[in-house]
């Protein structure tokens, strides 16, 4: 296939007036500061990563292309299944993802699948890389495969080796064997979406799931809603108040979904992210033995917040992956679609639009990698900032792609309309973006109220 030498309005790279052409003719010392090969942007970023993470990024992309791509449209268009049912193709995907290590990468071998060399880097960074690759191909499938990590996180954050060995290790073992044991994270309650994600709201929270002490453990009663992956989970980390107490008593219970009294009530018909279920769970005198209390009584609120701090940067990466998919779809459309005998990409206004899209997308990646790189102990301020900013901007990128395609943009086959529907959830779940903005300030207030204590010079540093 013959490629044109240049886009309209630009000189070819080989033209004498092309600066890149001339850099190669600079003296050696000048070439060291100017000459470059214009390589693929994804490759450029991957090569900048530490080797272990670069390998993970390449593997994740390959897995997404091989196993997620063929299912993305089908999973989005499929009829809404009764609660708990999963299509055979998604079951195969989960099994393959488990065998390939994508459901167990928060611990290294022999417990999990994290490469030992990746241990030198924050797991949140690794997770963000994987989720970007998966969500680039399909937001819903990405959520299907990542909600499980959110469910497991309280077990890890218990900080108790016995909890990890007793519960996480068998979960990961089954995942690696291709018989995935999925875990869901259950905090949201009817009428209390934001109260469980914000300290100020929690203060006046009226418990929707209550635990009552009985011989040998606790009985759980109440309902949780909008639980991602709750329909396919075999166990759930459930957060419940102690009888007669408020949010300060919140305790994390590790609940077996086969326990008597546990019921999967329904799954929601959602705008997007349709490959992943959002479940309503009912607890009617569900008995939870003492050894399934995670992190100790009354530590649930802190574990919940720490879990959200761990997951909000990967959620940003989820939005990033979708912004990237929208940008790539727009580029492909602009390259292939002809108007007046020329590809759209020859038009200056289209080039301007694509430039904005790629700048937005890569700015998000810079932000996310910067924060993920240092997220050994993810700070609430950084995690919340990433989450609301990346998800808001990612949707804007998707809107640009739809605008470029005009009435073609509403067609499912162009992919961007699905990306929009998928992205839209990321601005709502794990705390609405309004709640995340307030979370940033909540965490920042120590410096805001007494800046001199924490800074070398007066005033608040940003």
């Amino acid at each position, binding site marked *: 296939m013959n490629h044109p030498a240049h886009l309209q309005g630009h000189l070819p790279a080989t033209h004498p007036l092309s600066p890149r052409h001339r850099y190669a003719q600079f003296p050696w010392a000048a070439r060291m500061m100017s000459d470059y090969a214009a390589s693929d942007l994804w490759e450029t970023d991957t090569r900048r990563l530490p080797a272990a993470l670069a390998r993970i990024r390449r593997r994740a992309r390959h897995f997404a292309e091989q196993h997620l791509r063929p299912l993305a449209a089908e999973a989005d268009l499929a009829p809404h299944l009764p609660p708990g049912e999963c299509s055979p193709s998604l079951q195969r995907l989960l099994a393959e993802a488990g065998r390939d290590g994508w459901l167990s990468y928060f611990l290294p071998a022999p417990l999990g699948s994290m490469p030992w060399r990746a241990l030198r880097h924050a797991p949140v960074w690794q997770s963000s890389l994987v989720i970007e690759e998966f969500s680039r191909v399909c937001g819903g499938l990405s959520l299907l495969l990542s909600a499980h990590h959110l469910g497991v996180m309280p077990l890890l954050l218990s900080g108790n080796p016995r909890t990890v060995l007793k519960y996480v290790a068998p979960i990961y073992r089954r995942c690696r064997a291709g018989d995935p044991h999925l875990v869901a994270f259950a905090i949201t309650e009817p009428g209390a979406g934001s109260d469980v994600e914000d300290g100020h709201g929690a*203060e006046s929270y009226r418990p929707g799931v209550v635990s009552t002490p009985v011989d040998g453990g606790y009985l759980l009663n109440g309902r949780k809603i909008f639980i991602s992956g709750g329909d396919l989970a075999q166990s759930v980390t459930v957060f419940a108040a102690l009888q007669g107490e408020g949010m300060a008593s919140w305790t994390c219970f590790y609940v077996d979904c086969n326990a008597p009294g546990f019921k999967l009530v329904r799954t929601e018909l959602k*705008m997007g992210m349709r490959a992943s279920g959002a479940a309503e769970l009912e607890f009617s005198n569900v008995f939870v033995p003492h050894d399934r209390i995670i992190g100790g009584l009354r530590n649930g609120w802190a574990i919940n917040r720490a879990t959200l701090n761990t997951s909000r940067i990967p959620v940003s990466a989820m939005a990033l992956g979708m912004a990237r998919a929208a940008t790539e779809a727009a580029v492909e459309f602009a390259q292939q679609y*002809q108007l007046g*005998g020329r590809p759209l990409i020859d038009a200056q206004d289209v080039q301007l639009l694509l430039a904005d899209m790629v700048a937005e997308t890569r700015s998000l990646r810079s932000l996310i990698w910067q924060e993920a790189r240092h997220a050994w102990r993810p700070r609430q301020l950084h995690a919340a900032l990433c989450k609301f900013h990346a998800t808001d901007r990612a949707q804007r990128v998707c809107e640009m792609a739809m605008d470029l395609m005009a*009435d073609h943009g509403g067609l499912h086959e162009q992919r961007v309309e699905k990306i929009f529907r998928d992205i839209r959830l990321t*601005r709502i779940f794990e705390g609405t973006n309004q709640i995340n903005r307030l979370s940033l300030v909540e965490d920042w207030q120590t410096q805001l109220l007494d800046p001199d204590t924490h800074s070398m010079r007066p005033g608040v540093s940003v």
Partner: protein
Amino acid sequence: MGLLSLSADPEGYGLWEQPAEKAGMLLSLRMLGQFGAVNAGVAFAWHRIALAAYVARQLRLPLNADAPLAATLVPTGHLGLARTSLARWLTGQPPSDEDSALLADWLNRREHDTVLYAPAAWESVLLPVWDQHTIAWRRVNRSDWQVTNCARAHGFDELAAFRLREPPASAAPIVSVPGDPRALFTRVLKMDMLGLMAIGGGALARAQTMATDYAAVRRQGGKLIAAHAAVQQLLTDIESARLRVDQALGSFGLALDEVDLGAVAASRIDVHKHLCHAANQAVQVHGGIGYMRDLGVEKILRDQNMLRLQAGGIHDARQFVAGWKGASA
């Protein structure tokens, strides 16, 4: 009820039957707003059906008395608004060779697919075509062209999406415009763009009611969410958008020929961005439940996106406005 133009009666006063009069324009825009408040997808379908009937009357084509709701219209070419070329041609600027070539390609239905969102049972569609250096029209029967059913579209759940392609030997005759083809096409574009804004305004009113009602009963942090500045900002964005739409439509509530198409196109860019933003804010007020199809506010957002993408969308509208003001490619 006479709301839709189902006959050739020139005295009818249904949707887009009397746009030459200010009262007829206002009636049509307000009707579409009311329809849009209930269901933007249905409103869009009726809007295009009424436009098809309007164009048919201007072309002196007989209406299909047996199935008047089965005839629809696509007012544009295969993508966008032909950059600056269409606007230059409509304003009577001397077309360059490049303008002519672009318009011929823009309206070429044989080499490019035309996207159609219409009721599943549509039977015919009116389309502009480029013929002898001017815009003429074609009424195409569904059975005569290649029609591809597309998968579910982003919004307009009540309608279906199709790709249309003219076969190599098309039998559909080209119908020349009696009178000034530029004037007719200008009117059609104005009615289409204004109609889309009116439908969006109605849908926004519905979203505003939903968001306000929800904020008045839903509690967070021990008080109603309407008492939180975060939610107040969202509701204010919605109110602000509604006012913008009302002002824009109010300024165009004139006899059709007194309305400037360039101004409509420029206004549309701004209005649809605000309509979509407001619909997003309405979803956001609802939080998680806003994302669920049971409630319906997410559908308003999807429909607002669809309205934004019609009539050439808002990206190319900037080039169109530039052309309207005299710029060339």
